[in-house]
């Protein structure tokens, strides 16, 4: 069970969590196609046909799904030429994740914390690569990795200067979350979990977010380890934390070597697929 340990907080006058949460609904209204996909993709009786028909009306999003389906990550080597097949290849959860990215404007880098997508792609790929070690579906792990920092983006959006300062002061992700809790009454991962739960993402996915900071939780171990990989790849002068401890003994340092290589190799392509071509956006 996750227990949020710190009660003390310095809530800024400018920051209103209610407002942030309300903004999530407003966003949905602005991107109706993405919102519809987020809601439909969760249904048990949805199909690639239904999803692709909705997806087709958001050209930018559709082209990203096509691009992702043909990326090295899925190994299809450019064979995916129809949107319906692209949806089949990447899976419903991934389509939903991409719609969520569009919905929350995570594809607009001007509104994001510095380094956001470098960290996110590393996090997602590392999470996917390590998932089998934790008995989890790599696909879900990829998605949760892609969305994990959504809360950070929301915090940044609503408190740009304050959040930038907070990030500068806390380059380490764990310390940063403590600082977030102190400043906003909620940390960014928890905020992500709340938002995703609000949109009907399965609890099995969102609960991982809530357990990252519980070092005794193996369920949180995957994302915790993925954050470590992301930090090693994206944070300058990073002081590594032993992976054995972070992963509840599931991983050793040797195991990380191929994962680091693979993440480095695939990160750019995933980033391009998620953000779309610069000139078309």
């Amino acid at each position: 069970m996750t227990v949020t340990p710190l009660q003390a907080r310095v809530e800024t006058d400018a920051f209103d969590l209610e407002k942030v949460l309300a903004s999530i609904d407003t966003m949905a209204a602005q991107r109706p196609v993405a919102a519809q996909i987020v809601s439909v993709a969760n249904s048990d009786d949805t199909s690639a046909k239904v999803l692709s028909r909705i997806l087709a009306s958001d050209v930018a999003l559709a082209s990203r799904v096509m691009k992702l389906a043909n990326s090295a990550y899925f190994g299809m080597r450019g064979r995916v030429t129809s949107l319906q097949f692209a949806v089949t290849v990447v899976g419903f959860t991934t389509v939903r994740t991409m719609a969520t990215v569009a919905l929350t404007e995570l594809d607009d880098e001007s509104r994001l914390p510095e380094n956001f997508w470098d960290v996110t792609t590393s996090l997602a790929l590392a999470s996917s690569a390590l998932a089998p070690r934790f008995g989890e579906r790599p696909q879900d792990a990829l998605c949760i990795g892609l969305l994990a920092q959504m809360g950070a983006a929301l915090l940044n959006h609503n408190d740009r200067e304050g959040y930038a300062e907070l990030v500068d002061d806390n380059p380490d992700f764990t310390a940063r979350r403590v600082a977030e809790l102190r400043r906003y009454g909620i940390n960014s991962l928890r905020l992500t979990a709340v938002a995703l739960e609000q949109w009907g993402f399965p609890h099995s996915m969102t609960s991982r977010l809530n357990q990252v900071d519980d070092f005794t939780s193996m369920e949180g171990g995957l994302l915790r380890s993925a954050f470590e990989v992301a930090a090693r790849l994206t944070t300058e002068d990073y002081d590594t934390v032993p992976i054995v401890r972070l992963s509840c003994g599931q991983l050793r340092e040797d195991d990380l070597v191929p994962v680091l290589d693979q993440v480095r190799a695939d990160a750019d392509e995933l980033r391009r697929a998620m953000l779309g071509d610069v000139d078309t956006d």
Partner: protein
Amino acid sequence: MTPPIGAVAEQPEGRTVSVTMSVPDDDRVPPEIVSSVFYSATVSDTLALVVAEKVGGRSRITWGNVGAVELLGYGLDDLRALPVDHLFPTLGGGELKLLLRRERAARMTLPVRTASGATVEAVVTTTPSPNNRMWTIRILSTTSEQERALRATADAHERRFSTLTERSPVPTLLSEQGMRLAHVNDAFCTLVGRRAEQLLGTGWIETVHEDDLDTVIEQVSAALDGEEVETQARLLRDDGTVRTTIIRFAHLFTPGVGAGFVGTIEDITDRLAFEARLAHQANHDPLTGLPNRTLLAQYVAGRFVPGTGGLACLFLDLDNFKVVNDSLGHTAGDELLTEVAARLSAVVRPGDLVARFGGDEFVVVCENVEQDAAVALAERISVELARPVRLGGVDVRPYASVGVTVQTEEHLSAEELIRDCDIAMYQAKAGGKGRITVLDQRAREDARDKLRLVAELRDAIEKREITLLYQPIFSTVDGSPVAVESLARWDHAERGPISPAVFVPLAEESGLIAGLGLLVLDETCRQLAEWDRLMGWAAPARANVNVSALQLDGNLPPQVSAALERHGLSPSRISIEITESALMKDPDSAREILHQLRDLGVELAIDDFGTGYSSLAYLRHLPVNCLKVDRSFVAELAHGHTEIATAVIALARSLNLSTVAEGVETPEQAAELTRMGATYLQGFSLSQPLTGGHAAAWFAAHGDRTR
């Protein structure tokens, strides 16, 4: 006790159920809350409902239904005083507001604390009232008995499935998404020699042979699209070896997740290798490794276009191979064949086919060559083959007779081409060993004519168109006719009379001699019986029947016996004539058969005596009655050479055998032979060969009692 309020709710299935609600006396739930409950919730037995209100900065529970009382374990009064955050221990700090939203409904899955202090995992949905101070809270336990049972069943299914695939000897892949694998079993890891971690995700793609990858992806696409497909693909093992497999893909759909596939792999490497070995064995000679006759036929047939040219066949037959085999042994013979095969393969042009036709015969097939080039190749081959081979300490020069045929417009089929070069080879061999012969137009026509003649001979034998003439044989004692020799004649309807010197060897070559021999034997017996009937005691006492060397086997005595019996003749009426050379082919076997014939009671004569090289000692042990002095020795008499005829007659007398002098052309020869002591005479000057009818008349006129 609080009076219950009965309410009726419509379930999704359309079933109507009663829900009993306890309502506090003094603080009635606003109607909008109650309606929101029914419009937003599916009511069921496991559904717990509470109402919360924010009073003085703290949210407290103000009401709960029976489900809530049962789930949470509080009495209703205790529940009514409970702060909401007490129910949700994980919502520390200010997080309760994440659940109790003023402007919209919220939903969270989180632990709910019960009266006992234990927690229950539940999906909690909150709906605010329009005044922003009250919330309806639905608590749906996810750990109900039914849920647990369902999950346990699902887990058991999952475990069964994973055990099945894990332990299965069939290499199995389970996709997660697209080409990405979520699972591989031990059998697949063993097949490709890699660990599961290296294969999951897209890692396994590296094990698929580059040239097969496109096809595999295509099949995966089809499987993801719902089809069941299979494909042959090579998989690369970690040690660099390649396994050929059949991968079968089945579609897999997980609701809410999407499509994947199950791949099962059958390793067919060994089976293919075995089949390839069998196919190779069926088409290749095991000794030399060269294509065999079957493959040769397929090869030529595949390239033969009637009415064109360009194909050439060289037919080689090793000269004296039998000598090597007989003198140095079969191992040396095999060694020689292997060496010849290697030399042939080395000397032909790239793209030419070298095949072992059988025994010591080889065929080379060339494409796009003229006759000159084919002959040049044959010469190169002859030179190359003639280099000495050391076999068992002896240098052997393997000369070959080579027949060459270049395809012409007259070749109607591939078989004709091969047959023609076979003919050419026989002509080369006949012309002396170590030669090269090209089958030209004339030779081809001759050969075809001969083939036609063979067919006609077969017909003639079947239709008994081969007739017999009978030449009388005379006693030197009184000049009376004592016997006849049966002579086969073939009067061809178109070609006219054909000499026995032509058709007997032809029958021997083409396997017709047995039929011909039987015909002569049977017709002779029939004629003897007819003469007996017509002439009584004046009929010829005996008929001599010639037997070919090829007839001299165990079948002959029963055939003779059957013919005699068929026509009711005594065995002494027949004398079997066998050439000296036929006896020498297999002397032991010949002697055995002669003894059997003799035991039947027939007479035996050695034909053409003196032309062969039989040893006198051997002759002495043969159970013969008569020697026939060859016509060539009789002819020599005219030139004063009496030595051999004298010697043969003297020899016969000293062995107590009778003699027949053949080819007596003049009365002088007859007188001379009589003087020398010959027993019988036969020849043109004495009597020509006669038909059966004429012979009857002739014997009636000339015959004395001869028996």
